[in-house]
């Protein structure tokens, strides 16, 4: 199976540890991962902010760069949802038959990391060790976008040494919303305040999720408050072994 990693522009630039963690986990499970160097971004920020023409080159690039892979794995539920739900829509709107076909070919191969591990590889125990108190926030795009269900929790429960605690009102949005956090910074912060309250009341040391974008927002608030809770993409927990964390 030819596996291509779509690391996402955010992880590439700000959270390379998450990309390395995906490589670590997949290699540990005996797979070879490729990183097509011409990849960039899924165009979600442009598309969701109303800049459709600007998002077209990125959509075309994605289809071109990832053509031919059996599986395209990405550590972002949000980007996976963007590709799955909106790349075909955009291609359709443009009326570009070649692009429509290229997108239709590549989209079914796209898997968010936990989908790939649980559904395609059929594993829940990836041999991780992480002796810390952890809580999991199902991001909106995990929950209502790609509908990951309990896949992330099944993977986390199999981690050795982990003390996994429930998050109250877990399905509530954290208030990030991409450019919403900038355009409506005050409302975004009001929503964030409630999320931070529930996170802190778990007594967890680590908050994890399947999207670094939401974690950057929640973590940004938690650090500002010196709350004593750090945020970590769940791939990095799955990659951890004895003594690494």
């Amino acid at each position: 199976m030819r596996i291509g990693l779509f690391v996402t522009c955010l992880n590439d630039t700000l959270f390379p540890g998450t990309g390395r963690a995906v490589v670590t986990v997949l290699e540990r499970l005996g797979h070879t991962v490729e990183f097509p160097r011409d990849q960039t971004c899924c165009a979600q920020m442009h598309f969701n902010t109303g800049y459709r023409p600007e998002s077209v080159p990125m959509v075309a690039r994605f289809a071109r760069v990832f053509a031919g892979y059996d599986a395209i794995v990405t550590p972002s539920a949000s980007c996976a949802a963007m590709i799955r739900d909106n790349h075909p829509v955009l291609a359709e709107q443009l009326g570009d038959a070649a692009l429509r076909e290229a997108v239709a070919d590549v989209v079914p191969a796209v898997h968010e990391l936990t989908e790939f591990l649980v559904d395609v590889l059929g594993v829940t125990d990836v041999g991780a060790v992480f002796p810390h108190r952890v809580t999991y926030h199902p991001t909106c795009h995990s929950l209502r976008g790609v509908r990951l269900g309990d896949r992330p929790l099944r993977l986390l429960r199999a981690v050795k040494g982990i003390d996994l605690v429930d998050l109250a009102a877990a399905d509530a949005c954290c208030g990030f919303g991409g450019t919403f956090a900038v355009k409506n910074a005050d409302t975004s912060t009001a929503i964030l305040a409630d999320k931070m309250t529930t996170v802190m009341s778990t007594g967890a040391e680590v908050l994890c999720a399947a999207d670094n974008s939401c974690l950057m927002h929640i973590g940004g608030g938690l650090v500002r408050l010196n709350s004593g809770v750090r945020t970590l993409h769940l791939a990095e927990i799955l990659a951890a072994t004895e003594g690494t964390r």
Partner: protein
Amino acid sequence: MTDDSDHDGRVWLGTPAFPEAARSALADTRLRHNLRHATTTIRAKRLDATGEVPHWEELREAGAAIKRRTTRHLAHYLEQLEANVTAAGGTVHWATDAAEANRIVERLVRAGGGGEAERHEVVKVKSMATQEIGLNEALAAAGITAYETDLAELIVQLGQDRPSHILVPAIHRNRAEIREIFAERMGERGRAAPADLTDDPKALAEAARLHLREKFLTARVAISGANFAAADTGTIAVVESEGNGRMCLTLPETLITVMGIEKVVPSFADLELFLQLLPRSSTGERMNPYTSLWTGVTPGDGPQDFHLILLDNGRTDVLKDTVGRQALACIRCSACLNVCPVYERTGGHAYGSVYPGPIGAVLTPQLAGVRRAASLPFASTLCGACYDACPVKIDIPEILVHLRAKVVEAKRDDRALPTPEALAMKAASTVLDSPGLLGVAQRAAAAGGRLTSGRGGRIRRLPGPLGGWSATRDTPPPPRESFRAWWRENREER
């Protein structure tokens, strides 16, 4: 999209743009407390009421399908409705916009039975359509007083306030505030509240009952909206909780119903479905307490003069938009408001429209034009909770993003120079379409990040529009090595 320059009486839209309007709402601690309490309670009730229906998802799908079919053949069903209402003794009027609808109502009220004094008073059943067209204000300008009889609408009207929720218009008020409003204002518009009024719900309801009973018994004309209208029989349906609507619909001699054209459903049998979807989604009840159905006029029973005003007011323009027209399927249950993380914090007034919350953010810009409501499509985190809650499966996030593109397009058309945001987006798109440029940007950001990050290696303040972000959130500095740089060193060159 409709021409935005000459719309009258559509929706309020007098309020500032959403981010600014939200700011004062967010700072109102009493409002925040009331909203949190109300939305949390109603969310739990809705989950119970929908969760117990084994085929809920199929019901939603059926509701969506019927609404889709109706919007595709709207003219056909409306003509059928007109024919059947007329055959049953009612009169049908067509109103292109708010001004025309208001003129028709005014004329009908003046023509309504009764003496000179009564002619200047009407009772009203809670109705979104009449709020949309600013009917009460138009009638007041014509010397006609409209009395709202829904308890929450009465609170809003007496408080000289605006509704902030589709179903619970006074959701922003608590008992103590309501007691104050009743004690101070009821006397100005009829029977005063008792001097010893407490904020006990029973006492408040009793004061309202006595105050309203007087109106029901004297009014000769009533005005209502409609939840549904069955084309095949000409039957109109109004769904409510208090029975005050039933009073209005049965006691006066003249009944005027103002209905958005999208409220028609093909068949009376369709009500079987919608009367399951609506109460369970809105109040979280298996069935609402009062469902009134009437077909034209019944001699010797109820109003003997019935008028149905079919209101367009921008709706046929919305129909032209294949993505946006989903919003016309809305049955005004307000489930989307109650699950919305934004609405829960800001309340309804920040949306500057009679239609607040997620559905308002997609309806208002379409009815009033995106230029007049440009901030609304952005007043959402796109969390998708509204879509999952919607009983007729309106994909609100999809419409929001669609309307965002229209806002950006409109700004592009209106301005000689691009907005700073458009320039930034263009630049970002250029960088993000080039792995080479992205690598350069990553190295520059890493160098810059090391310079700007403060103690603990976090970036505490960002420039320009990003200042809103960094006001409450630290940002991690870009790492020394991007993922692509790490890959090159560790996987390609090893």
